[in-house]
């Protein structure tokens, strides 16, 4: 059979039920194979939309997403999703077309060095150099994408090789001698960590996206409740512990709660799980958690002691390690009363510094209220994606995610235009769930073209644009740190999102009255098909609290 037909067999063997892509010259053979392969293909309007959709699918379902583009511009359009998937450890296999092998290196039409361009931003990549390599490379790509610390894998397939006739035999187990991720945590280290926890007076559990990737939300909750350990999460980890749990401190970091950041600042022991001490979490590194010792649990050994030296490193999968740590901890039967003083301190912070804002006295919709209204309108029962900016931080603060994989955003790369296509992918992966995108009026325009895809494929996402007519987060920084010199942040009233929605075959709604907002949102959520809701909010509202960049946590403002 043709190599591309073998490719289809490989995708099926990997359990792929849907791919997101866009054809072109170099991947014509692949698209011919899709014609009767029986795999759902969703034709996106821009490869970046397809890449982010594959990410949204992967984040919502935990399965490997698949995204396709042709050579040259098709592949370069995928660069942003590839980098995004790398930064947030999302398992996606990107299949790119490449020019014929006799044209490689000649600046042929639509030729780009895809492997070279993407090398710094992939977990691994394959340039197919012989058609017989293709099936094994595909399986290796899926294996690498989904195991260990997940990430993006690119497979670049020259057009002529993809047409070659090959004898296809299903590939058994893949064997990669240079790739053997450690999943089992070291028992001695786990025991030491349990002892340290038992001897701590002011512990904090700091959980990141790794807990979500490892599907270890229940195991985290079990550890947290084996005593009264306070828990905070990064923006990637939200939902790992329920946002309504009494041990929940709120998100930490630049726009985290004061309680979470102050607790980190005063902790004597921090248990970092699947988190990587990003600068948006630590603030000024030299003054980060100055009193704390660190237990660092991560499947990627290179994360341990990268930014903050660990005292007890444990390499492995959180789902493997956390139950063992909980068991070891319980066996020590520590005295829970030692944490009382710590909780008194935490409760004081929570009472003194709750998240809050001054609501309007008229019909004006405050952006924070918009999130609260959406939480109420959905009953909290939704998968929520977001773009990047103020709306993302407010969503993280005010939408109380009750379990993992309900909050899908671009944390590491901070990709504007991520939310809408990610919602599309999440909805395809979880068709029975309500999928909501909280977008910015700036961000949404970066991948709005995928509304056409949603209309064509009947993908009923509900997009709520927090419209303040600004690139709001940049405007906020210009207000606070650049003497209010607003430079190129004014978006004005363009486009008319209601008309845009209608032009794309979606339903467009404009909301500007606080008093009917919840009811109006419920109506929008109940509307069939894709819906784009233009919510007009207070134009100049700032996201608080905030650790100014490069400052320590205790210098939070707002």
């Amino acid at each position: 059979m043709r190599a591309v037909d073998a490719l289809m067999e490989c995708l099926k063997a990997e359990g792929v039920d849907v791919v997101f892509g866009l054809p072109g010259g170099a991947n014509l053979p692949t698209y011919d194979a899709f014609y009767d392969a029986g795999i759902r293909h969703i034709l996106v309007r821009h490869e970046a939309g397809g890449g982010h959709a594959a990410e949204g699918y992967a984040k919502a379902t935990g399965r490997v997403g698949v995204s396709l583009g042709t050579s040259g511009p098709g592949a370069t359009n995928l660069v942003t999703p590839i980098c995004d998937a790398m930064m947030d450890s999302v398992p996606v296999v990107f299949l790119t077309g490449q020019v014929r092998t006799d044209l490689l290196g000649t600046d042929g039409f639509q030729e780009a060095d895809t492997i070279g361009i993407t090398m710094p931003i992939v977990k691994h990549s394959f340039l197919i150099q012989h058609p017989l390599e293709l099936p094994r490379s595909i399986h290796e790509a899926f294996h690498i994408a989904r195991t260990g610390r997940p990430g993006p894998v690119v497979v670049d397939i020259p057009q002529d090789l993809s047409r070659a006739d090959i004898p296809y035999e299903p590939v058994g187990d893949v064997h990669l001698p240079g790739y053997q991720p450690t999943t089992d945590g070291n028992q001695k280290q786990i025991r030491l960590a349990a002892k340290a926890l038992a001897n701590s007076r002011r512990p904090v559990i700091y959980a990141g996206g790794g807990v979500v990737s490892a599907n270890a939300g229940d195991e985290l909750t079990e550890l947290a409740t084996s005593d009264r350990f306070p828990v905070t999460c990064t923006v990637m980890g939200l939902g790992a512990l329920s946002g309504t749990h009494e041990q929940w401190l709120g998100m930490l970091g630049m726009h985290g709660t004061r309680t979470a950041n102050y607790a980190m600042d005063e902790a004597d022991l921090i248990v970092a799980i699947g988190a990587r001490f990003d600068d948006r979490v630590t603030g000024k590194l030299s003054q980060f958690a100055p009193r704390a010792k660190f237990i660092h649990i991560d499947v990627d050994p290179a994360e341990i002691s990268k930014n903050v030296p660990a005292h007890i490193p444990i390499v492995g999968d959180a789902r493997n390690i956390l139950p063992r740590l909980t068991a070891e901890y319980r066996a020590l039967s520590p005295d829970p009363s030692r944490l009382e003083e710590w909780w008194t301190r935490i409760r004081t912070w929570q009472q003194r510094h709750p998240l809050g804002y001054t609501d309007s006295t008229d019909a004006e919709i405050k952006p924070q209220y918009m999130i609260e209204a959406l939480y109420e309108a959905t009953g909290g029962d939704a998968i929520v994606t977001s773009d990047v900016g103020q709306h993302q931080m407010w969503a993280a603060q005010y939408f109380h995610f009750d379990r993992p994989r309900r909050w899908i955003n671009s944390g590491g790369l901070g990709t504007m235009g991520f939310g809408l296509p990610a919602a599309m992918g999440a909805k395809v992966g979880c068709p029975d769930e309500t999928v909501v995108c909280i977008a910015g009026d700036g961000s949404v325009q970066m991948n709005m073209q995928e509304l056409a895809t949603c209309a064509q494929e009947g993908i009923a996402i509900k997009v709520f644009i927090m419209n303040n007519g600004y690139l709001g987060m940049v405007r906020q920084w210009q207000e606070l740190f650049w003497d209010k010199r607003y430079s190129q942040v004014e978006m004005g009233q363009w486009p008319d999102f209601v008309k845009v929605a209608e032009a794309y075959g979606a339903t467009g709604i404009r909301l500007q009255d606080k008093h009917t907002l919840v009811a109006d949102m419920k109506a929008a959520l109940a509307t069939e098909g894709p819906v784009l809701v233009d919510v007009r909010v207070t134009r100049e509202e700032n996201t608080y609290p905030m650790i100014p960049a490069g400052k320590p946590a205790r210098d939070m403002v707002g």
Partner: protein
Amino acid sequence: MGEPATKEVLSLDELDAVAGLRTGRKHIVSILVENKPGVLTRIAGLFARRGFNIDTLAVGPTDDDAVSRITLTLDGAVHPIDQVTKQLHKLVNVLKIRDLEPGETLARELALFKLNADGAARAEVMQICDIFRAKVVDVTKRSLVVEVTGTYDKVDAFEALVRPFGLIEMARTGEIAISRGRSET
């Protein structure tokens, strides 16, 4: 910490950070990689984007056709070596990495020196070559090409001694290394 809260005593004060430290010495790192196209690019790219600076780099075959050995030297005063090796380990084509212990390692490099050596200088240069067991591999009326092998430091010492005679040019391979004794590097 005050009194322990459990029967098992462990003061948090006893815990030391275990990595991320600068060692302050030169490190020789031996890396076995799959002999595939693009592998060196991946390694070089990793060093470039993480800001690691390679002092020397030598690449060559091993006893196994499918495997190449990359030997590189790095300054442990500038780089956290454990972070370097852990990042390298993440490359799928990297099979094995050893940060070689100085006392248990044989390291050699090859260097070629082109020297001014006419008249009286020639005898003196030849004497230095003798001491360093260097080999003269090319002679003209006014110049010599000398081959030296040895550790990085030995080649450095040789360079310092012959430089005053007029060093026209020099080429060095960078160190390769292998562990002492029976066990594999």
